[in-house]
């Protein structure tokens, strides 16, 4: 399979048609989708129509976007006009959005062809895609293992070659962790650089859309296409997405890179830690100044996250009540109708987080829980800022382990939550971070290295990621 960049170049030059490219990927889907289950819906008809339109444009001589004819898989929490969008939840079954998310509009304008909506943990709550109401996605590298989550379908789709690129969303690691577990690149951009309009909210102050790809360069291109100011999202930053593509071959010589102490010790599998140390050593060899650095407040990240995210979620998800759209379980009174609808429509993990969040916001508990979590958030940002006075970028594992087996962590929510221990702090700080494959663990499964950077520090982040990628080839 070719990369997104190769496909776009071939389509633009007329060497290959968009339909031909699409058929190749639809072929891959029909071959392996039944065992991987990356998609909730494969949008064959719409994809053929979109690819035909691109080919007509080629025939007319353009203008063609940078992703002309490139198949893309879209996480099923991004609204797609006229195409069912479910968040892998029964409560939204049958709902068809009347609009596209801004990122979907921008991909289409760049010539990308949506091939389907990808499976996910229900409402993006989970780290294994086992919380999908429509059954789990399987890791293409080993079907007995999870692909990670919550954007497991999007990660698996790229790893399986169903599409060269895909979109996910990252609230506490939901792009980076599945990218690591599936052996692909995954980026969570700086909060506010990519529009959230049309992204179905989980934790609004943490959610950010980002790409999966097989290479750093493809991920960079997608970021540039989907990023930049959107007046429809009040939290959107005014500037364009940092111009990362042009710096990918800058190298790391002279860069200062910190290895996060708190993410290299207890709880991190030795084979994963060993790979990350190897990455640090290679960066040093390539001319970077590499040192260990402590970011003490990240230790409280998990606790703060599991107050902030559920609190926002409890409010964001209260609109699913059976009154206006989605599932409705009829009952004699409106109150009972709402209760029965929500009881039937939400899965256990979603209910658990709604209850957690409702409790955290309750009168008398607000200060102790939500209020304290906000203070921790400020501390985390401050500790990171302190580290970034000395370093251009930071390095850590993306996930404490390689992909685990189905059912391994479902019985104990806490062990599942711990899977996000390396990724969560970034969302609380609003900073960018990305995962780039860095070899295999003892079990032969992919290991991901996480590169972190300060707000809008994407250029430094992509330089480090590109260098790490280059060291393996």
């Amino acid at each position, binding site marked *: 399979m070719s990369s997104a960049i190769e496909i776009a170049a071939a389509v633009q030059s007329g060497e290959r048609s968009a339909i031909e490219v699409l058929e190749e990927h639809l072929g891959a889907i029909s071959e392996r989708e039944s065992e991987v289950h990356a998609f909730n819906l494969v949008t064959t008809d719409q994809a053929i129509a979109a690819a035909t339109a691109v080919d007509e444009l080629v025939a007319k001589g353009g203008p063609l976007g940078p992703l002309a004819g490139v198949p893309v898989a879209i996480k099923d929490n*991004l*609204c797609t006009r006229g195409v069912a*969008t479910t*968040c892998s939840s029964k409560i*939204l079954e049958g*709902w068809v*959005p*009347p*609009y596209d*998310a801004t990122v979907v509009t921008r991909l289409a304008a760049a010539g990308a062809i949506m091939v389907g909506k990808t499976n996910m943990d229900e409402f993006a709550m989970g780290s294994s895609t086992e919380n999908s109401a429509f059954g789990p996605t399987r890791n293409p590298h080993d079907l007995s293992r999870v692909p990670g989550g919550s954007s497991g379908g999007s990660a698996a789709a790229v790893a399986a070659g169903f599409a060269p690129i895909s979109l996910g969303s990252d609230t506490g690691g939901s792009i980076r962790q599945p990218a690591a577990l599936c052996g692909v690149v995954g980026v969570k951009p700086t909060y506010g650089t990519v529009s*959230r*309009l*049309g*992204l*179905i*909210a989980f*934790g*609004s*102050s943490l959610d950010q859309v980002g790409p999966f790809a097989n290479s750093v360069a493809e991920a960079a291109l997608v970021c540039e296409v989907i990023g930049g100011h959107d*007046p*429809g*999202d*009040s*939290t959107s930053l005014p500037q364009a997405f940092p111009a990362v593509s042009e710096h990918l071959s800058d190298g790391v010589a002279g860069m200062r890179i910190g290895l996060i102490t708190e993410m290299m010790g207890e709880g991190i599998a030795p084979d994963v830690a060993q790979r990350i140390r190897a990455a640090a050593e290679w960066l040093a060899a390539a001319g970077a100044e590499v040192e260990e650095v402590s970011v003490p407040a990240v230790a409280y990240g998990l606790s703060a996250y599991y107050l902030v995210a559920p*609190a*926002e979620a*409890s*409010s964001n998800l*209260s*609109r699913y*009540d059976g*009154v*206006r*759209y989605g599932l409705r379980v009829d009952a004699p*009174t*409106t*109150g009972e109708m*709402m209760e029965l609808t929500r009881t039937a429509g939400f899965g256990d993990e979603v209910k658990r987080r709604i209850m957690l969040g*409702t409790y955290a*916001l*309750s*009168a008398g508990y*607000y200060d102790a829980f*939500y209020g304290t979590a906000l203070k921790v958030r400020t501390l985390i940002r401050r500790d990171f800022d302190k580290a970034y006075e000395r370093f251009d970028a930071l390095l850590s594992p993306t996930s404490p382990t390689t992909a685990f087996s189905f059912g391994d962590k479902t019985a104990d929510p806490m062990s599942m939550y711990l899977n996000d221990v390396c990724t969560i702090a970034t969302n609380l700080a609003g900073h960018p971070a990305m995962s780039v494959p860095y070899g295999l663990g003892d079990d032969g499964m992919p290991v991901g290295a996480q590169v972190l950077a300060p707000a809008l520090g994407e250029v430094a982040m992509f330089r480090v990621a590109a260098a790490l990628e280059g060291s393996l080839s």
Partner: protein
Amino acid sequence: MSIDLSVWEIVIGLEVHTELATRTKLFCSAPNEFGGEPNTNIDPLTLGLPGSLPVLNEQAVELAIRVGLALNCTIDRSVFSRKNYFYPDQPTNYQISQFDLPINGEGWLELPSGKVIGIERAHLEEDTGKSTHVGGGGRIHDATYSLVDYNRAGVPLLEIVGRPDLRSGDEARAYVSELRAILVAVGASDGKMEEGSLRVDCNVSVRKHGDAELGTRCEIKNINSLRSLGRAVDYEAERQIDMILAGERIEQQTRHWNEDEGRTLKLRSKEQADDYRYFPEPDLVELSPSQEWIDRVREALPILPAARRHRLCERSGADTAQAALIVERGLDDLCLAALDCGADPSRTITHAEHNLSDPKALELDPEMFAKLTKMDADGDLSSTQTKTVLAELVQLGGDPGEIAEAHGFKAMDSGELDAVVDQLIAENPEQWQRFCEGDPKISGFFVGKVMKATQGQADGKVVAGLLADRVPNAAKE
């Protein structure tokens, strides 16, 4: 009413919700219009569709600032919060409102009486949709089915929270009336209570004069007119006093004003405070209007009702009550313009107070109005004639001199009037005798006779003077 106000003090604080007269809703571009077909003024955000996001309406902020400045409030850095509660007319099941950091802080409003009422805050929030419950008791709990219209959902509201500085139903009415005049003056609202543009929740408590602590309050909802407000306050105060006198404890409640029965009825107890789980709205950023913007809004503010009243009193010598009435009718600009044209101040105010209730009076030509007041003051026309000419001036316009002439109105020659008076005295010696003896009732007899004889052209005051001149000196001593 049986309240002994020498013993009891009624304490009233009002929360007034006003719909801001914006083109579109508070956080989206759906139109803000009253009275459309159900569910036509809607868009994804209005319906709370997944993936929709709020974007703050700048016009709503500007109107909020206008009101804040008009109410002498501080304009502060503010934050929107989510107020979480489940109800079908709330599309997201949370309302975006300003909680601990409102756009407008501490301010005040001056009543026409001169009393100053404190304003605690005036904050922005979104309105809800409207539910109709069909069947059962017409309430959500026992309805056969319910219908929801989201046209109103997301309409910008400004909630103006007054301090409990009001002390009677009349004062409460004056407050709302003044507030409405200010809202209309600054263009923030059309002020229509009947269309729900202005909604008043009324907190009432009672205590004995001299008590330091406030009594337990009840909040009254469903007040749809100024008249209901006065009646509801009086009813509720009396109910609470009766309970206290009967040795009962007042429970903090939300009560519903029933206009037909003329009483308040318990809706729910407020002893257990609702838990709305407020937290900062993460989809919006902090709102901090620049000083430059605030200054620009301040400069563009129109002259406000209180300033209009003060100005009118100073220029014309009108008293407070007259000024309040004239400003309420919007006639103060006309009066001032007439004064600029040399109108008689006292006649100007008298006519504006008594003879210009017709809305067409607003279109009067100040110069012609001024001319009429001068003719009136100079005794060129009788008061009856003046009223006739003024009425025609209001309806048809024109020149008061020409109108008077067309009617054949003219000042009577004093010799002519003397003759009429002398003749009447001669024809009615008995009545003249009583007049000379100082019988007050008989004066009207002669004035009436003169008026009849002159077909209303004589001025009553002049006639009274002529009669007095004819009383023999001996009778006066």
